[in-house]
C-alpha cells in the first residue's frame, strides 16, 4: 500500500515541450528539441506552418530565393537541409507533433511540469488521406480573398494556401460564407473530407513552453496623410513582396495595382509605424528589406527609377554595408535623407506626388508611379491575450518583456521566447533565438534529454523495428515496378496499363503492376507483401515526387527487408502528368522513358549503409568571454563535460572592461556570476593561458592539442577528446588610427574607463565631440553595430555629469535599432547635438597649439558650410575587428572567414551558428560584432546545436558520400582544390599508395563528406565515385542512355 502511494506521487515529469507558433522560429526550436530526444508539440493557429517567411520570395543580402534555402512553403534547404525536410509529411521528425488550427486555452503548473489545455478547430480534411488533387477546390462555389497573396487573388473555401503548404493537405474554411453545399465532401476521391468534424479539446503535459508568436505588420491606414487604402498605387511592403515573388499573383512581375502596368518609378518610404511619436522604436528590418525590394526592381524592371526615403541606413549585420553600397553604386538606387510629409494623388493617372524637404530645407515635389510603404513591426495580435493566459509580462511597446542578460526568458520561469515577439528582428536573429531558447529548455529538462532517442539513418527515417536487411549481393536483379494512379491525377493522363505491360517485358523486371494510392497504408502493405512473396530485390514506384515521398517508400522497402537505396521513385505526378496535360501522347512516351531510366538506375544500384559511431560526450569551447562561458554553462548544466579554453590570464573577454550598459544593468555582476558558475561547475574544466594548436577528427570524435603557457614560462601540451567544438573567440575594439596620437583623442573604451574611474575629469569637460564609424584606412568597411548605442549611453552620462557640457556626435548613420532607439531619443532630449558627415568629407581633427585645444573641422550638411568645433575630448568609435589569431585558428579548424575577417557560418540566414563542417559551431562576436544579449542568445544557440549531437549515444555518419579508388588516384590534388568543404586529403593511410607508388592517395572522410559529388565530376582519372550516383547509375549505358526516347 505504502509503495503504491509513493509511485502515485512520483509521477514521471514530462519530457515534452510546447512550442507556440509555427513560423521559422518555432520550427527551428522544435527541431533542435526533437533532435535532443524531447517530444515537441508544435502549435500553430492557422492551417499550415511557415509564418511570415513563407510569404517572402527572396532574402537579403544574398538574394537566395527562399525556395532553395528551406521554408516549408517551398521545400528543402541547401546541401545539408536545415529545417524543412523534417516537416515534410512522410519524413516528419518522429518527435514532433504538429497541431495546426490550434490555440492555447490554459496553462497550469510550474517550470518543468506544466499542464496545457489546447483547442483544435476542425480542418474537415484528413491530412493522412488528402493527396492534394485539388478536386474539392474545383468543386467549391465560394470565392474568398487569398490572404497569402494579400487579397490580390482569390481562393476557394476549400483550399490549400500555398502549393506546397505543410501539412501538405487541403482544408475547408467554414466561415459564414460557406453555404454548406457539401460538394467538396461529395467529390473527394479518397473520402478525406468529413464536414461533421468537431473541435477537439486536448490536454498536454510539458516541461517548458517556447513562445514564437512572430509579429504583425503595422496598419498603414492609420497614417491618413500617406493615402494607403485610398490611393491604389500606395502599397505596403508585404504586398510588394508578394508582387516580386515568383509564387506571387503576377509570378514575380511587379505591376501597379491601378492599371496593371509595370511602374517606371517607385519610391520606398521608410519608418512607417516606426521611429515616430506613437511607435518610438525602430523595426530593425525595414532598411534592409526596402533595399532588397529596390534592387529586385532594378534587376527586373527596365529603366525603373528607385528612390528610398530614409532617415538612417541601418545595415548592421554581416555584409549588409556592402549590400547598401552595391544598391547605391551598382544599381543606382537613390537614397534621400527625408521623411515624406504627405502624398497626393494625380487622379487622372493615379501617379503619386511626394512632398519633402531636402537636408538644406528646400521643398521638393516629385512624382512616382508607385509608392511602397516600408511598414514596421508590431507585437503579434495574440500577444495581449496570450500574455494573460500564460501570465507573462509585456514591455511598454507590447512585445514580450525580457532581461538584457536573460534575453530568452519571459517573466514566468519555464516559459521562453524567441524571434520577433521579444523585439523586432529578422530571420537570422529569429533562428539564433529559437535555437537559444531550445538550449534554455534543454538545461531545464536536462534529466529528460534523450528520452525519445531517434536514429538518423536516412535524414529522418527511424530504423526502429525494421527486419534485418537481406543481403542481395550477387543476386540476379529482380525488379518490381509499381505505377500509382493517384486517384485519377496520374491515370487520367497516362495509359498506365500499357506502361506496366511494356515494363513487364524489360529484362530483369519480375513484377509490373498498376496500384491505386501507393501512399495509403493498405497499399504500402500490399507492396510489401508483393516484394516479399515475389522475392524482389529492386523496387521502382512510379508515383509522385521523390522529394516528398522517398522516405515513405524507403521505409516500405526497409520493412520488406531491403536496403533503402534499392529503390527508385519516379516523379510521374509533379514532373509529367501535371505539367503536360494537353500532350498526352508525348507525356505517355516521357513517362515510359522515365520509368525505363529508373529501372536501369535501380538495377545498377547497390546498398548504401551509414556507419554508427559513438559520440564523445564532451564539448570543447574556444574562448572564455561572455559567449564562451554562456555556451559552456548551457552544455555543462545539461549534463555534458566541457573543456573551456581561454588564451588570456583571466576569463571574461570584453566583459572585463564593460562597466555599464545603456539599459542600466551591471555587466560586472554578469561577469562575476558567469565566472563563479564556470569555476565551480564540476563538469567544466577551464584552461587559461591556453591555445588550440591542433584540431583533428570529425563530428563526434575530435582530438585537439592544447598548449598552455605556465606563468613561469614553461609550455605544456596535452590532448583532449571531444565530440563537438564551439568557436567563441570574440572580437576587439581596434586601436589602429593616426588620430589617437593627439592628446585628448581616445577610444570609446577609454572614455568609459574615464567615466568609471575618473568622474571628476568627466564632470569638468565643457566640449566633447564624439566621432562615429572610425576605422583604419586599410580595414574593410562594415557597421560595428554596437558603437551607436554605446555612444548614446556615454553621451547621456556626460550630460548627467555636466548638463552644460556641449556634446556633439558626428555620425554617418545612427544605428540604434530595436528598442535602443529610445537612447537616441533620450540623448537628443538632453541636448546632445547630432551632425551627419559623409565619406566624401570626413571630419578633420587637429590640435590647435595656440589655444591648447582640439579642433574638429566638419561640413554641417544642414547649413552646408564648414564649422570648426573646439573640443576638450574627442572619443572615437573605433571599428570592432575579429580577435587576433582568427586566421590561424580558422586554418586549424578548416573553416572559412568572411570578407570582413569574421568566421563564416554555414548559411547566413538559416544556419548562423553552424559551420559547414559538422560538429563545429559558432558563437558571439567571432561571428560579427554583437551586444551582450545577442552574444548570449548566439552562445545558447550554438550550445543547443552542440547538445543535439552530445545527447545522442551514437551518430550515423557516411551514407551517400564520395569514395576514392586509391588504385586509380594519381594524387593530382584536384579534389582537394574543388571540394567546397575542404574535406579530401592526400594521405598515406592503411598503406594505400597511388599510381606509381607516389605520395599516397586521396582520402575522403565519410564522416565529413557532404555528398555533393563535386569531386567526382572533376576527378580527371575518374577515381572518385559518389555512392548512389555512381557513373554506372548516371550513364545508364546498359539501357541505351538517357537520350533514347524510343525503345
Amino acid at each position, binding site marked *: 500500500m505504502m509503495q503504491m502511494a509513493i509511485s502515485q506521487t512520483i509521477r514521471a515529469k514530462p519530457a515534452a515541450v510546447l512550442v507556440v507558433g509555427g513560423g521559422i522560429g518555432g520550427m527551428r526550436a522544435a527541431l533542435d528539441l526533437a533532435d535532443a530526444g524531447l517530444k515537441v508539440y508544435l502549435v500553430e493557429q492557422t492551417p499550415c506552418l511557415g509564418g511570415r517567411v513563407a510569404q517572402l520570395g527572396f532574402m537579403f543580402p544574398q538574394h537566395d*530565393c527562399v*525556395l*532553395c534555402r528551406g521554408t516549408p512553403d*517551398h*521545400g*528543402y*534547404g*541547401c*546541401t545539408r*537541409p536545415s529545417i524543412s525536410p523534417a516537416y515534410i509529411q512522410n519524413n516528419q521528425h518522429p518527435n514532433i507533433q504538429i497541431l495546426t488550427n490550434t490555440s492555447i486555452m490554459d496553462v497550469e503548473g510550474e517550470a518543468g511540469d506544466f499542464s496545457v489545455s489546447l483547442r483544435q478547430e476542425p480542418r474537415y480534411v484528413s491530412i493522412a488521406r488528402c493527396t*492534394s488533387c485539388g478536386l474539392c477546390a474545383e468543386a467549391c462555389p465560394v470565392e474568398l480573398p487569398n490572404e497569402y497573396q494579400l487579397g490580390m487573388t482569390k481562393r476557394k473555401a476549400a483550399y490549400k494556401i500555398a*502549393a*506546397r503548404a505543410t501539412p501538405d493537405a487541403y482544408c475547408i474554411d467554414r466561415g459564414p460564407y460557406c453555404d454548406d453545399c457539401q460538394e467538396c465532401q461529395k467529390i473527394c476521391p479518397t473520402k478525406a473530407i468529413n464536414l461533421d468534424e468537431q473541435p477537439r479539446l486536448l490536454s498536454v503535459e510539458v516541461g517548458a513552453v517556447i513562445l514564437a508568436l512572430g509579429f504583425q505588420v503595422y496598419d498603414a491606414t492609420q497614417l491618413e496623410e500617406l493615402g494607403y487604402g485610398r490611393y491604389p498605387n500606395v502599397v505596403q511592403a508585404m504586398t510588394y513582396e508578394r508582387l516580386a515573388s515568383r*509564387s506571387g499573383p503576377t509570378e514575380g512581375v511587379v505591376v501597379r495595382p491601378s492599371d496593371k502596368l509595370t511602374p517606371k518609378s517607385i519610391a520606398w518610404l521608410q519608418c512607417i509605424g516606426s521611429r515616430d511619436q506613437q511607435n518610438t522604436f525602430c523595426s530593425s528590418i525595414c532598411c534592409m528589406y526596402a533595399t532588397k525590394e529596390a534592387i529586385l526592381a532594378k534587376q527586373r524592371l527596365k529603366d525603373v527609377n528607385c528612390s528610398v526615403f530614409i532617415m538612417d541606413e541601418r545595415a548592421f549585420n554581416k555584409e549588409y554595408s556592402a549590400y547598401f553600397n552595391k544598391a547605391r553604386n551598382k544599381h543606382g538606387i537613390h537614397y534621400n535623407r527625408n521623411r515624406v510629409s504627405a502624398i497626393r494623388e494625380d487622379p487622372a493617372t493615379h501617379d503619386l506626388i511626394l512632398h519633402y524637404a531636402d537636408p538644406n530645407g528646400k521643398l521638393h515635389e516629385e512624382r512616382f508611379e508607385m509608392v511602397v510603404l516600408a511598414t514596421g513591426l508590431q507585437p503579434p495580435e495574440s500577444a495581449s491575450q496570450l500574455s494573460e493566459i500564460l501570465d507573462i509580462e509585456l514591455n511598454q511597446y507590447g512585445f514580450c518583456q525580457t532581461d538584457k542578460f536573460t534575453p530568452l526568458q519571459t517573466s514566468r520561469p519555464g516559459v521562453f521566447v524567441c524571434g520577433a515577439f521579444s523585439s523586432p528582428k529578422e530571420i537570422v536573429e529569429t533562428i539564433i533565438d529559437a535555437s537559444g531558447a531550445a538550449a534554455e529548455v534543454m538545461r531545464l529538462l536536462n534529466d529528460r534529454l534523450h528520452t525519445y532517442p531517434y536514429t538518423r539513418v536516412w535524414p529522418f527515417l527511424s530504423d526502429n523495428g525494421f527486419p534485418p536487411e537481406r543481403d542481395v549481393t550477387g543476386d540476379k536483379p529482380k525488379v518490381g515496378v509499381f505505377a500509382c494512379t493517384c486517384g485519377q491525377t496520374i491515370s487520367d493522363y497516362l495509359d498506365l496499363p500499357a506502361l506496366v505491360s511494356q515494363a513487364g517485358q524489360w529484362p530483369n523486371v519480375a513484377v509490373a503492376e498498376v496500384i491505386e494510392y501507393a501512399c495509403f497504408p493498405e497499399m504500402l502493405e500490399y507492396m510489401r507483401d508483393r516484394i516479399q512473396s515475389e522475392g524482389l530485390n529492386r523496387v521502382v514506384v512510379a508515383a509522385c*515526387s*521523390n*522529394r*516528398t515521398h522517398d522516405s515513405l517508400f524507403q521505409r516500405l522497402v526497409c520493412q520488406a527487408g531491403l536496403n533503402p537505396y534499392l529503390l527508385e521513385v519516379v*516523379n510521374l*505526378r*509533379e*514532373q*509529367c502528368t*501535371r*505539367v*503536360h*496535360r*494537353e*500532350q498526352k501522347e*508525348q*507525356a505517355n*512516351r*516521357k513517362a515510359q*522513358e*522515365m520509368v525505363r531510366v529508373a529501372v536501369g538506375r535501380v538495377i545498377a544500384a547497390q546498398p548504401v549503409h551509414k556507419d554508427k559511431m559513438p559520440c564523445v560526450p564532451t564539448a570543447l569551447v574556444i574562448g572564455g568571454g561572455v559567449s564562451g562561458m554562456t555556451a559552456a554553462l548551457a552544455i555543462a548544466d545539461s549534463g555534458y563535460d566541457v573543456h573551456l579554453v581561454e588564451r588570456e590570464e583571466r576569463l571574461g573577454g570584453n566583459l572585463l572592461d564593460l562597466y555599464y550598459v545603456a539599459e542600466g544593468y551591471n555587466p560586472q555582476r554578469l561577469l562575476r556570476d558567469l565566472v563563479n558558475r564556470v569555476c565551480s561547475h564540476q563538469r567544466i574544466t577551464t584552461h587559461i593561458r591556453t591555445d588550440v594548436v591542433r584540431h583533428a577528427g570529425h563530428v563526434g570524435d575530435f582530438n585537439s592539442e592544447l598548449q598552455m603557457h605556465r606563468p613561469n614560462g614553461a609550455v605544456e601540451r596535452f590532448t583532449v577528446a571531444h565530440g563537438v567544438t564551439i568557436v567563441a573567440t570574440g572580437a576587439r575594439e581596434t586601436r589602429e588610427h593616426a588620430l589617437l596620437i593627439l592628446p585628448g583623442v581616445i577610444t570609446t573604451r577609454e572614455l568609459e574607463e574615464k567615466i568609471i574611474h575618473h568622474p571628476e575629469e568627466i564632470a569638468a569637460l565643457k566640449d566633447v565631440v564624439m566621432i562615429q564609424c572610425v576605422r583604419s584606412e586599410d580595414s574593410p568597411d562594415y557597421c560595428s553595430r554596437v558603437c551607436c548605442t554605446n555612444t548614446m549611453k556615454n553621451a547621456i552620462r556626460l550630460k548627467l555629469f555636466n548638463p552644460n557640457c556641449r556634446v556633439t556626435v558626428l555620425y554617418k548613420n545612427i544605428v540604434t535599432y530595436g528598442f535602443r532607439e529610445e537612447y537616441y531619443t533620450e540623448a537628443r532630449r538632453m541636448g546632445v547635438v547630432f551632425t551627419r558627415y559623409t565619406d566624401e568629407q570626413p571630419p578633420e581633427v587637429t590640435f590647435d597649439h595656440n589655444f591648447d585645444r582640439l579642433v574638429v573641422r566638419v561640413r554641417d550638411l544642414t547649413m552646408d558650410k564648414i564649422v570648426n568645433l573646439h573640443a576638450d575630448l574627442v572619443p572615437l568609435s573605433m571599428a570592432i575587428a575579429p580577435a587576433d589569431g582568427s586566421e590561424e585558428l580558422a586554418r586549424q579548424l578548416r573553416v572559412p572567414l568572411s570578407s570582413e575577417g569574421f568566421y563564416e557560418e554555414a548559411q547566413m540566414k538559416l544556419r548562423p551558428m553552424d559551420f559547414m563542417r559538422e560538429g563545429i559551431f559558432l558563437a558571439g562576436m567571432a561571428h560579427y560584432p554583437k551586444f551582450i544579449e545577442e552574444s548570449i542568445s548566439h552562445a545558447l544557440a550554438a550550445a543547443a546545436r552542440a547538445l543535439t549531437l552530445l545527447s545522442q549515444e551514437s551518430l550515423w555518419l557516411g551514407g*551517400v558520400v564520395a569514395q576514392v579508388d586509391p588504385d586509380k588516384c594519381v594524387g593530382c590534388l584536384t579534389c582537394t582544390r*574543388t571540394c*567546397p568543404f575542404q574535406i579530401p586529403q592526400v594521405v598515406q593511410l592503411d598503406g594505400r599508395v597511388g599510381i606509381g607508388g607516389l605520395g599516397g592517395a586521396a582520402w575522403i572522410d565519410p564522416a565529413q563528406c557532404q*555528398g*555533393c*559529388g*563535386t569531386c*567526382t*565530376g572533376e576527378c580527371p582519372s575518374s577515381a572518385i565515385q*559518389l555512392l548512389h*550516383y555512381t*557513373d554506372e547509375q*548516371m*550513364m545508364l549505358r546498359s539501357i*541505351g*542512355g*538517357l*537520350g*533514347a*526516347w*524510343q525503345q
Partner: protein
Amino acid sequence: MSGDLQIVAYCCQHCAYAAADLAGGLRMQYPPAVRVVMLPCTGKLDALLVLQAFEDGADGVMVAG
C-alpha cells in the same frame, strides 16, 4: 523517330528540382521534351554526362541549380 525534341535537364535536388516540383504543384505547363535528371548538387555534373546525353540523342542539355 517522332521528330520530338529532347532536352535533358540536370537539376540540383535542393533548388531546381524542387522548382520543377513546384511547377507541378501549380500545374504550370511546359513541353514534354524536358526530361529532368536529379543531381545531389550541380557540382556533381560531369562533362561526360553532358556529352553522353548528346551522344544518346538529346537535342539540348540544361543545367539548373
